């Protein structure tokens, strides 16, 4: 290859100056930072919506908002948190970490990387703009089931296109991750030497590439059903509204694992560091992750047990769903075994990781309960479901993101975060999040339906307790912002290894903070 390439391609300058640096950047660290900050902003926007929901549910009766607006709050809260907060946060972590962890100079397709990020602010501006249109924001639930969702006002096509744009972003981001992992590893970094965060993201990215286009197809059919006279989801024309649910959940269930697999990778990085032992059962972790991904494609209809499926279908989806508990159990036991007889310390990342293991497992158990088809007929669309998925998504996915932020923040900024404040953040969050979500199990078992602004008076006490927990949890997240701000501004300098027990290329071979371009020369892998 010609040598002028090295002149053009690899001038070792630092970042460009000014605002345009962030708009035109192709650097994986810059783009990772953008993703993470975007996710943080969306986390607070979605969180504000959750506060509105809890305020309305504080007491029975209608106090704060009208029912239509309440429904749009639950709908958009979910869309924002899933597509705007958790997924971009994981993608931001992938951007920051994968090139450093596999010894690559950058992501494989840097310009496309920038494109993947910069579509997102536009997509979510479109989504949120629907609140100011005739008919208001989407209010039919985040699953946008027809025929209800088709009754939305002028905002409908904007919401659909927002989903399309976010989907394009995810697909491009995932292609970048897969190609980076498969093509950019340093010599000697074999697949089975990769850190688990890289493995879990490889599988997550595969799930995204396989399912986001299916969602795009589903919402396109919604669009043409509303505007182009098609009858995909109308029985009068020979279609079937239930068909939408099948197509949607064929995307939706893998999506659930998209939201949790990277979390498994993060916890698998943090637990060994603070137990000062290598991860127990590395290869079984890899196989378990792959099994979960495979199973995620054949369990979708457990979201629709009550829709009126043939019994054979109910049974198949019930047993397939319960099988997921096996590889997931492998993971939980591996983490516990890693900690067994470890030389443990409990810095904030470890606290969040242990919190994850405990509470994610709890959410997993309620999931197992929901998997039992005849029992699900009772729980379906109740607050039990709400409690279940908030345990796996808030104390699961989001706790892992918090853990990752605390764990790698010193590496990224070169400064240690405020440990005292971090511990306060963990404990207040953990107490309040259980006050928030645990009572929702009781509410659901007692029969309180989800997605309603008002409820029967017998549910009043637990709702009030849940709301109090919600307000405390919401406010306590401001501490997280303070921690991040302080760490970026300054503080005690972090060592290159940051944590005594930390392993991996980013801790062993790079400074804290790492140079703008890490690994221009491929590192040596032992």
């Amino acid at each position, binding site marked *: *290859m010609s*040598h*002028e*390439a*090295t002149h*053009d*391609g*690899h001038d070792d300058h630092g970042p*460009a100056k000014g605002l*345009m640096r962030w708009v*035109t950047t192709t650097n994986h660290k810059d783009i990772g930072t953008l993703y993470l900050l975007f996710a943080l902003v969306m986390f607070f926007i979605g969180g504000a919506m959750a506060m509105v929901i809890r305020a309305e549910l504080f007491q029975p009766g209608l106090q704060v908002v009208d029912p239509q607006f309440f429904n749009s709050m639950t709908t958009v809260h979910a869309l924002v948190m899933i597509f705007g907060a958790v997924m971009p946060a994981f993608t931001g972590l992938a951007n920051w970490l994968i090139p450093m962890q596999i010894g*690559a100079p*950058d992501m*494989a*397709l*840097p*310009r*496309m990387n*920038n*494109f993947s990020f*910069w*579509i997102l602010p*536009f*997509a979510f501006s479109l989504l949120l703009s629907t609140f100011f249109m005739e008919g208001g924001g989407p209010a039919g639930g985040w699953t946008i089931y027809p025929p209800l969702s088709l009754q939305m006002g002028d905002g*409908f*096509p*904007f919401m659909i*296109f927002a989903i399309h*744009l976010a989907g394009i972003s995810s697909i491009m981001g995932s*292609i970048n991750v*897969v*190609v980076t992992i498969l*093509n950019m590893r*340093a*010599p000697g970094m074999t697949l089975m030497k990769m850190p688990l965060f890289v493995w879990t993201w490889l599988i997550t990215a595969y799930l995204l590439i396989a399912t*986001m*286009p*299916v969602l*795009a*197809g589903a919402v*396109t*059919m919604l*669009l*043409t059903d509303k*505007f182009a*006279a*098609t*009858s*995909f989801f109308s*029985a*009068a*024309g*020979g*279609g*079937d509204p239930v*068909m939408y649910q099948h*197509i949607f959940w*064929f995307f939706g269930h893998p999506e659930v694992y998209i939201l949790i697999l990277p979390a498994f990778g993060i916890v698998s990085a943090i637990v060994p560091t603070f137990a000062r032992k290598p991860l127990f059962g590395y290869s079984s972790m890899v196989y378990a992750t792959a099994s979960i991904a495979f199973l995620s494609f054949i369990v979708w209809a457990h979201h629709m047990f009550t829709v009126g499926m043939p019994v054979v279908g109910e049974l198949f989806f019930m047993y397939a769903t319960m099988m997921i508990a096996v590889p997931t159990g492998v993971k939980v036991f591996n983490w516990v075994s890693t900690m067994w007889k470890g030389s443990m310390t409990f810095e904030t990342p470890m606290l969040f990781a242990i919190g994850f293991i405990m509470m994610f497992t709890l959410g997993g158990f309620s999931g197992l309960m929901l998997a039992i088809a005849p029992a699900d007929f009772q729980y379906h669309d109740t607050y039990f479901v709400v409690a279940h998925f908030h345990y796996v998504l808030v104390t699961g996915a989001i706790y892992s993101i918090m853990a990752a932020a605390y764990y790698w923040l010193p590496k990224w900024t070169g400064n240690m975060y405020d440990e005292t404040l971090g511990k306060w953040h963990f404990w207040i969050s953990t107490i309040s999040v259980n006050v928030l979500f645990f009572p929702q199990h009781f509410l659901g078992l007692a029969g309180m339906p989800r997605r309603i602004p008002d409820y029967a008076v017998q549910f009043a006490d637990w709702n009030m307790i849940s709301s109090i927990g919600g307000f405390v949890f919401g406010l306590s997240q401001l501490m997280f912002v303070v921690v991040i701000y302080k760490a970026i501004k300054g503080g005690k300098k972090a060592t290159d290894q940051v944590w005594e027990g930390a392993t991996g290329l980013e801790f062993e071979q790079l400074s804290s903070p790492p140079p703008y*371009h890490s690994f221009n020369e*491929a590192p040596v892998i032992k």
Partner: protein
Amino acid sequence: MSHSADSYYVPHGSHWPIVASVALTTSVVGAAMWFNGTGSGPMVMLLGLAMTFFMMYGWFGTTVRESLKGMYNEQVDRSFRQGMMWFIFSEVMFFAAFFGALFYARVLSVPWLLGEDVSTHLTLWSGFTETWPTNGPNNVGGEFQTMGAWGIPAINTLLLLTSGVTLTISHWALKAGDKSKTVLWLAATVALGAIFLGFQAYEYIHAYGDLNLTLGSGIYGSTFFMLTGFHGFHVTIGTVMLFVIMLRANKAHFTHENHFAFEAVAWYWHFVDVVWLGLFIFVYVL
């Protein structure tokens, strides 16, 4: 894995992605306004599309120039190849959603409307007796005739299959370093793609004008037009890409060992071809 001294090319500071984001957003905002009946919608959408074409010209132009300067080593080439393969996989899954809708309607929901395994039809749609093809119990869109398989669709199948062959001959010529033969057979492929599209357009006119088969003809019309329509859209993109590749081949952009863009478009074309075979079998024949 190569780790030679010429390192992986990481571009710096590109403004094309942000142009792309603005262009895409403008396009979809225009389309959404159009759907809502806002008068300026089509104009906004056209503006967005114009920006999109400008962006593609600029972005692809940049990479073409970089490629010609020899800035892409083997590893970069592999990234492009893998990226294209995964992109095509995502396209496969997009079509899978619509094929899934077709299969679901034919195998499950239409028989259910007829009362197979379920009894709700007795109260809701007791008079309904049609099997596939159908526009549903309400006869949505009025009586229609279906598109026969052995007229234009069969010809189109032959056209696309032939285009796969001509494209391969062109590829062989490129590998042998025969530029004029490469361009000639590419031109034949483009022509076959264009003829296919012409027939497809004629078929749509025939469907709307003579058969009363429209997008609004119940589930049959919905699946027929969405599947063939998205396929036709992909053929259009593929034909344009082949045309661009033909121009580039004519400018001697490709060498017998370095011609990723040619191969990427060829893969895309074969993908479109395979989707058509699925369409021909499941939409037209069966």
